């Protein structure tokens, strides 16, 4: 069982829910940037949500399935095709051996997740298959996919999955079959411009003058071209200045908004370092991190202040939504 990489795309990496438990040794968590789409893709592909998926960035790869596979695509709309025919997103899709998955124009969002039933069979390094390129950890040889790579797939687990799709594939003679139903991924949210991202006051919020706090909460920001999996760099007409400059280094987290002396905030993302020495004016509410993960260079956003209690309540609500989706999908896997 494998997948052959005909073209690697701009940046295609194996990611899961991240490498937790080693931050005290300086090991970044990594993992899917948009872990909401990552989990939905796994649910549709009849996987555990912790299974690894492929994170596909803006310009997608060209991949050939060497065996029949059950897949799901979630997240950004990157015009996927299967043997040239538009491929559905947010649905389980049964793919025939030899079929080529390709991508076209990026219509909305930045990152698309490909889940394959059985997952990607790359070694588990320190509890995770996530790729962390800087230290060559996880994924396929610790790096992004390259042309001619062969990515091993995990064995199918459990009983027959989506037998109806299987039959449809045999009967139709097409390259793939898909269900009529789909999971609502709220793609329209990704198209919102400027994007609205909720934040919480950070550890050093009070150490910034009100002008800086206003620049953060009322100004409009633009995602800078040098943004990556480590950090989303922001530009604005109004700088966030007057803060404490440097602080004694301490832990940072996914969504920490740190402010270097330039006054241009950086939101720390999946591959962030574990500690940092710039003041932390705010943190992005976890429930909105996937929106940030889907922004492309040049996209605009605004921040909206919320409370810790509200942010946690929203997150718990999101967790329940995911359980609801899983409970809706699970009985259909047997159909």
């Amino acid at each position, binding site marked *: 069982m494998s997948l052959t990489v005909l073209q690697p795309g701009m940046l295609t990496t194996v990611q899961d829910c991240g490498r937790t*438990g080693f*931050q005290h040794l300086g090991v970044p968590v990594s993992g899917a940037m948009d872990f909401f789409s990552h989990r939905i893709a796994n649910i549709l592909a009849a996987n555990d949500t912790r299974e690894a998926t492929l994170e596909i960035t803006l310009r997608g790869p060209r991949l050939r399935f060497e065996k029949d596979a059950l897949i799901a695509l979630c997240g950004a709309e990157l015009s996927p095709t299967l043997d040239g025919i538009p491929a559905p997103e947010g649905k389980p899709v049964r793919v025939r051996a030899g079929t080529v998955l390709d991508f076209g124009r990026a219509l909305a969002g930045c990152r698309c997740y490909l889940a394959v039933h059985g997952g990607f069979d790359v070694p588990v390094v320190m509890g995770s298959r996530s790729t962390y390129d800087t230290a060559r*950890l996880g994924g396929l040889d610790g790096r992004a996919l390259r042309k001619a790579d062969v990515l091993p797939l995990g064995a199918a687990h459990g009983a027959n999955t989506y037998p109806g799709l299987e039959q449809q594939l045999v009967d139709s003679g097409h390259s793939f079959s898909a269900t009529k139903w789909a999971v609502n991924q709220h793609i329209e949210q990704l198209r919102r411009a400027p994007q609205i991202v909720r934040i919480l006051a950070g550890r050093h919020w009070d150490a910034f003058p009100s002008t800086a706090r206003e620049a953060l909460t009322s100004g409009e920001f633009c995602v800078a071209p040098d943004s990556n999996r480590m950090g989303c760099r922001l530009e604005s007409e109004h700088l966030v200045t007057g803060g404490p400059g440097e602080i004694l280094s*301490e832990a940072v*987290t996914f969504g920490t908004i740190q402010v270097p002396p330039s006054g241009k905030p950086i939101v720390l993302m999946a591959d962030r370092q574990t*500690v940092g020495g710039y003041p932390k004016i705010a*943190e992005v509410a*976890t429930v909105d991190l996937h929106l940030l993960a889907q922004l492309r260079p040049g996209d605009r956003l605004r921040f909206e202040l919320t409370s810790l209690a509200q942010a946690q309540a929203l997150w718990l609500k999101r967790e329940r939504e995911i359980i609801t989706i899983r409970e809706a999908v699970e009985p259909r896997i047997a159909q």
Partner: protein
Amino acid sequence: MGDQALVVEFGERIDITLSAHIAALAQRLRDSRPIGVLDIVPAYATLALHYDPAAMGSGASPYETLCDIIASWLETQATAIEAAGRTIEIPVCYGNAFGPDLDAVARSVGLSSGEVIAIHSGSTYYVHMLGFVPGFAYLGGLDNRIATPRRDTPRAHVPAGSVAIAGEQTAVYPLDTPGGWQLIGRTPLQLFKPDSSPPSLLNAGDQVRFMQISAVEFEAQSRAAP
């Protein structure tokens, strides 16, 4: 710190006694495996806990729940904690190709290269915290006679094992990375091995001593390293 992490602040300065206390607490807390806590990250004067709010029970606020748990746990730990750290010896071949900045460091502080080596390998260092890249330890305790600012232009490539100085800090680069510190030597030891348990040679709270070795010993120990 956000809705899935909290920071306990113990002080506001770099102080070895404080870091030792925090490192020991971090280790004890990690050993007690608190439910829903994913990462426990000690730093100079703080201890951060990354947690899963969904695992904090059905109480009104996951944050309040965890704060209560940690506060009462800290109370039981109130008595002075012995520094539990180990002392780790790191062999270093100083100068030449192994430490291309050694002569420049010596010149800038007005000492001979031999004196810089003697001072550097004559002190005991303390691991305040890890960060920057996996296995990178921030070592305190550098003798200020050899404190040297970073290089004006960072190097695009610093080889793994390089022993370096920046300001009043010294460190060993665990991986090939870019870096702006002054390189004075190199160790044949591997500081970060993903397949080992633990994967990092150093941990917060450890003490470190550098031992001078020759180029011949360096080559022998590099070959012996797995």
